């Protein structure tokens, strides 16, 4: 009762909502980069939204199922196939014994999520299954997945399948919850006022490019560069997912899921929570266009996103029940 890694990917880890309550010990939350996609993918297979899930980058791992399972893919589209036949993202899929799942090329997005119905057996460290790579704890032995790793399923998939082949269930999750804009909305940070008038304009008028120095910790943006009216030091203080720091060379870094708990660079802005998902699906070479917004809009957008997720969850539960009971 497992899925076996038959070829390793570049960075595939088990993640969930993240590990909270330990940042005062310097232990950062980690967790999925795209929590929205993680939740949608889990819902498709009837899991609770924050169930432990596999997050993959391209090139991603190749898996073989040793038992039937209900799975779903969400987030990025890496042109997945099962036994060589293309399969779509955002659908629940029933896979059979010895089915092989692999990913061929990145079509869009940066991180794909693989959810398995009933969940995966994973290491719980400090109340989370998220892999903490630095602490070497949580997830699968605290590390990224490698060839020959065997991930156990928490529950056998008990529904008998008529056909021998895998089945793509007919409905697709609608992930569109609001704006189609390509812009990333930001709130001014505490040190926004340190930027010169010209730099403030450049911040939102120019688009930035995500450089190769980007990973789960943060995205380094190309140098515009931006100028500060003061060199006064910022004493180390807490930072968060989405915090945009101004580096001494005038460049920017956007903090992501594996960010440190604290930082000593000016916090010039923060990406709103509702846009973390969009940001998490961007990769090196992609352009970011920032636009300033206000607290109220940021909060309303997150609520909207959350409402959409709840509707989606209800729809998924209903469809799964209907499908497997008929």
């Amino acid at each position: 009762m497992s899925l076996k890694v038959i070829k390793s990917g570049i960075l595939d880890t088990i993640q969930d909502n993240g590990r909270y309550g330990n940042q005062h010990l310097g232990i950062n939350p980690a967790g999925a980069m795209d929590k929205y996609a993680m939740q949608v993918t889990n819902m498709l297979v009837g899991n609770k939204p924050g169930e432990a899930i596999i997050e993959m980058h391209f090139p991603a791992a190749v898996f073989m199922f040793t038992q039937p399972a209900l799975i779903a893919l969400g987030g990025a589209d890496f042109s997945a196939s099962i036994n060589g036949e293309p399969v779509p993202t955002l659908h629940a899929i029933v896979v059979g014994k010895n089915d092989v799942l692999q990913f061929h090329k990145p079509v869009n997005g940066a991180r794909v999520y693989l959810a398995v119905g009933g969940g995966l057996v994973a290491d719980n460290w400090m109340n989370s299954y998220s892999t903490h790579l630095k602490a070497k704890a949580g997830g699968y032995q605290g590390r990224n997945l490698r060839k020959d790793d065997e991930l156990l399923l928490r529950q056998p998939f008990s529904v008998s399948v008529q056909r021998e082949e895998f089945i793509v269930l007919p409905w697709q999750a609608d992930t569109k919850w609001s704006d189609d804009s390509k812009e990333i909305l930001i709130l001014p940070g505490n040190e926004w006022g340190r930027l010169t008038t010209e730099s403030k304009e450049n911040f939102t008028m120019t688009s930035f490019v995500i450089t190769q120095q980007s990973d789960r910790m943060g995205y380094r943006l190309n140098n515009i560069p931006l100028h500060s009216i003061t060199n006064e030091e910022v004493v180390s203080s807490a930072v968060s997912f989405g915090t945009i720091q101004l580096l001494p060379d005038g460049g920017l870094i956007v903090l992501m899921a594996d960010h440190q708990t604290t930082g000593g660079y000016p916090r010039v802005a923060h990406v709103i929570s509702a846009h973390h998902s969009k940001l998490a699906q961007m990769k090196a070479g992609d352009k970011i266009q920032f636009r300033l917004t206000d607290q109220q809009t940021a909060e309303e957008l997150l609520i909207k996103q959350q409402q959409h997720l709840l509707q989606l969850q209800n729809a998924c539960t209903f469809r799964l029940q209907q499908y497997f009971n008929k």
Partner: protein
Amino acid sequence: MVSSNGFEMHSSIIRYRIFPLGDSAITIDFGNCIDETLNKEVIRRFNQLQQQPFPGMIEAVPAYSSLTIHYDMVALRKKGTDALTIFQWVEQQLLERLEHPVKHSATKERCMKISVCYEKDFAPDIEQLAAIKNISVEEVIQFHTSKTYKVYMLGFLPGFTYMGEVDEKIAIPRKPQPVNIVAGSVGIAGKQTGIYPLASPGGWQIIGRTPLKLFDAKRDEPTLLRVGDLVQFYPVTKKEFEEIKITEL
């Protein structure tokens, strides 16, 4: 009451300012500086929030002179408040608490003794530091071990402690470029001293290494030190270092 520079007045005359850290966190800033009095207030307020969290609070993160609270905005919105934004509601919760000073806690600070081997193999930067500061290596060790340091905050890495303050005679800026640093390395950056709990790139000037495990994911309390602890370093030989290290495995 707001003072001319925007810092609100506190009843016990510690000024603070509150600002949003994005849309799901809020920071109480007591003054953007390294100061023991301000840090004590941070720790008192941190302990208060740990014991009596407000609804929707996820966690609090103390730093040198600020305290940040991460909160669950969606849960709070569901709960329903009459404030225009959740931020304003959370700010109000904090302002009400900050109006009343926290009593000094009766519990004494923990004093932790940390063994450090300052021998050359473990202290890649100690000779250069001594040369720049125009003192001997022995004097560097003497200065570093003659004071008790306060753990002002943890951050950067799991279990990384920011402690202060070292004697001016051994204070030295961090390196311009980070290098690879071994776990257990004890370093100096400005007037701060700290210990790398894990191997990591870093810019602090390394003057020794402790055999103690500052961080161990398998322990119930994974970090050896907590914010507010007092730390006293004492020198050990390489032989003693190896002996202690075995007991730590």
